[in-house]
């Protein structure tokens, strides 16, 4: 039972264009969502998060959108840069769960110069 899904395993985008990563969840109890970025042979690093009381959060080139009715969130990277090439994980948790994260399977992004 995969509660967090990233249906696109990979994404290729030209430098300077927008990257859009999608994530769906099934557990309506989730109330906090995070995106992590992972380079090979390194641990995941936190990118951006959003609380369920918001529908958008922006941090520089990164924006996360949350559609609670659709149980869907997306990460927009604008403009995409070659250094953004990595695997991106969507994760979800709920306030009563001790900050335990449930991760999606990841999307590998390749930004072409």
């Amino acid at each position, binding site marked *: 039972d995969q509660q*967090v899904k*990233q249906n696109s*395993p990979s994404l290729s985008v030209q430098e300077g264009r927008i990257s859009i990563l999608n994530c769906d969840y099934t557990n309506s109890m989730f109330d*906090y969502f*995070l995106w*992590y970025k992972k380079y090979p*042979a*390194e*641990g*995941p*690093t*936190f990118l951006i*998060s959003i*609380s369920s009381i918001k529908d958008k959060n922006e941090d520089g080139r990164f924006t996360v959108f949350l559609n609670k009715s659709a149980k869907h969130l997306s990460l927009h990277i604008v403009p995409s840069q070659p250094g953004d090439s990595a695997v991106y*994980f969507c994760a979800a*948790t709920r*306030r009563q769960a*001790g*900050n*335990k*994260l*449930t*991760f*999606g*399977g*990841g999307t590998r992004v390749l930004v072409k110069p």
Partner: protein
Amino acid sequence: NAGVTQTPKFRILKIGQSMTLQCTQDMNHNYMYWYRQDPGMGLKLIYYSVGAGITDKGEVPNGYNVSRSTTEDFPLRLELAAPSQTSVYFCASSPNAGVLSEQFFGPGTRLTVL
């Protein structure tokens, strides 16, 4: 600050052997976690701890044990290694309860069981 450190970086075990994966954090975080990542998959929670002396199971705890005697250390023990435990193991920590926050991850331990 070193953040979250893990040792060893790589290890090959034979079936039935045991080992301990070490994890240390220097951020005075109460919460610590162990995840495993299988090839092409997301991370799955093995065990977590909300403070020294307190541990609880995550999604995939079978075949593992943990202890938390200090705030800094959270070792993961494999008693009888099996090929299904071949994976990359990540330790993470996060600040205190009541505030949802990011988790800080270590660099991982790549374990192969043959």
